[in-house]
């Protein structure tokens, strides 16, 4: 059934359809519409779940660690400061191999206070052992949230479904909502092989000495590798029932492209328009959208980018002292190829600044004109920033 809804409500619909059993969350703009809509579902009896209105994000994830270990399907949602506050328990959830699903609305980190979109919050959690899936529109948000539960429960790892603040969380679009029967065919009930119970008492997450810890960590990496391998199978199953698939990456006109843009999130939609316009003018430009960020689909990325002369990565995020995070990962994926494209990094749209078709066109032009990338990624559209040193001297 087609319905016009916000990205936030697309998440909530998926949570309802997935029959989540325990939800625990703490409000933060721009995640609030997700938890408010889920609260309405619970209050109206449309979702038979326990909604835990805890006193912090830290406790929201802690409660789900308890609930998931006790063997029920769990969900939370957060953003920015809230995700940063959860950091310790992000590691805990993956280390404990719990299939918790989280919607994470990309919002800039303070200071200064900024509620607009920026990916640095989720990307700075890249080493926590969570699968990360970035979405482009409302339909993808709903579909990916449903897929997230099945993927999480298939490999025993937590999954973060990531969507841009406002451009996606608060934007109304037509979304096709699957029927309960279709979802039930795709997503079987959660029945883990181990759970906290008094019939077979076990200790979970106890002291692990150097003699065993490394193997435990390696098993998490094995699960990540299997998530990468199984993602296409998961999408096959989804497509058979729902008729849609997205891919860990999606390529647009890359086969003969000289320059390939690499994007994620809603910037991708804008870039699609730019690529089409430039193609109409005869420019050989292509686009690669990265949806799956952890595990990183390096092989697929190499396959699509290797023939291009130049790659331009758009990063709505930044790792201070290093560069754009997607650009770093793309460079690492390409570095062992004998003939590899040059990778140009561009920093765009931090803290919700608009990434317009004109800006993306300018990025294409710069990439064509330059023989080689600069050492540092280029910050686009900056007004001049005087450097201010501290007071201590040499």
């Amino acid at each position: 059934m087609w319905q016009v809804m916000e990205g936030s409500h697309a998440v909530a619909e998926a949570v309802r359809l997935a029959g989540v059993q325990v939800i625990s969350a703490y409000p933060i703009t721009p995640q609030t519409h997700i938890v408010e809509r889920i609260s309405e579902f619970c209050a109206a009896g449309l979702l038979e779940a326990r909604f835990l209105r805890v006193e912090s994000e830290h406790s929201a994830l802690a409660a789900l660690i308890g609930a998931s270990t006790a063997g029920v399907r769990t969900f939370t949602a957060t953003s920015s400061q809230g995700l940063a506050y959860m950091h310790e328990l992000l590691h805990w959830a993956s280390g404990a191999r719990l299939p918790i699903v989280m919607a994470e609305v990309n919002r800039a980190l303070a200071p200064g206070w900024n509620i607009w979109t920026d990916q640095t919050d989720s990307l700075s959690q890249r080493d926590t052992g969570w699968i990360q899936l970035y979405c482009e529109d409302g339909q993808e948000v709903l579909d990916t949230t449903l897929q997230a539960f099945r993927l999480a429960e298939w490999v025993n790892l937590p999954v973060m479904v990531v969507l841009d603040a406002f451009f996606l969380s608060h934007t109304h679009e037509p979304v096709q909502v699957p029927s309960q029967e279709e979802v039930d065919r795709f997503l079987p009930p959660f029945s883990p092989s181990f759970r906290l119970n008094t019939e077979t008492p076990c200790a979970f997450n106890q002291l692990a000495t150097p003699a065993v810890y490394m193997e435990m960590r390696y098993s998490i990496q094995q699960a990540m590798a299997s998530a990468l391998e199984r993602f296409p199978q998961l999408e096959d199953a989804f497509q058979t029932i729902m008729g849609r698939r997205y891919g860990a990456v999606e390529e647009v006109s890359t086969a003969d492209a000289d320059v390939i843009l690499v994007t994620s999130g809603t910037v991708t939609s804008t870039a699609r328009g730019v690529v089409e316009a430039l193609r109409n003018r005869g420019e050989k430009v292509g686009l690669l959208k990265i949806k799956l960020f952890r595990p990183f689909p390096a092989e697929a990325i190499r396959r699509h980018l290797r023939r291009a002369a130049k790659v331009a990565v758009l990063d709505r995020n930044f790792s201070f002292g290093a560069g754009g995070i997607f650009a770093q990962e793309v460079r690492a994926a390409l570095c062992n190829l004998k003939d590899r494209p040059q990778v140009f990094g561009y920093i765009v749209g931090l803290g919700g600044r608009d990434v317009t078709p004109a800006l993306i066109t300018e990025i294409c032009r710069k990439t064509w004109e330059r023989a080689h990338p600069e050492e540092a990624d280029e910050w686009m559209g900056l007004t001049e920033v005087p450097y201010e040193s501290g007071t201590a001297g040499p």
Partner: protein
Amino acid sequence: MKVELPDHELMHSGHVGCPGCGAAVAMRFLLNGLGEKTVMVIPACCWSIIAGPYPQSTLKVPVLHTAFETGAAVATGIRAALDVRGERDVTVVTWAGDGGTFDIGFQALSGAVERNEDFLYVCYDNEAYMNTGIQRSSSTPYGAWTTTTPGRDWKKMRKKNIVEALAAHRIPYAATASIAYPDDLVAKVKKARSIRGSRFIHIFSSCPTGWRIPSELSIKIARMAVQTNIFPLYEVEGGVRYTINLKPKGYLVKEYFRLQGRFSHLTEEDLDQIQEMVEEDWELLLRKAGTMPSL
């Protein structure tokens, strides 16, 4: 005092606590009162070690080890999951140290009991962060040496009154207990187990290593803490109905302090001052209870 304990033991004979560890004794009594239908949450504390490394476990009940500040929140989630699964007969218990309760875990605990989450939260109190090497907590008493309050910087602040803080949330049941009074302890555990909603038991648990006492004095010192009114045994129901469970002999606090290395630097004047503080606290408690215990 005659001690009647059930014959089932839910703790294996081996554990890796120090000799004379009050926290190990406290756990044994707790499990005696709880029985098998128990799920235990243990945030970071000495008991994260005492319970044994993978793949061994000292306890015969299921245990979820968790992050330091999450004891109450994890219990909340387990309770919710068990309710969804229809397992109402299982008691969810958090077992945390004073650091995990009074300090870093206090926000989660306050949040959970304000919502009256249905669990039993037990704090075994050894009056410092022992796992990390005897550092001060807000439960460390006035006058104590710890590794972060050494020399002349011995702790000059009072111990936080955690039972009063919990009672202020108007929870159904809050009580103190001591390893030196096992019958009282087990009775309180059983009572707490029969109540729904948030329940809190604060157990005084001597720590030979951290208190600089001989291990064989562990129980004696716990008894002295009660008998000097330093750690009175009482219950608070519904946040307002106080019952003092034991009429102490009222020894002078110096008899308790003089046994412990952690207080060896205190002068006679310091001890007199502490005596006054203890008397003041006791009078306050008596006023709340309305009567002297007639035991």
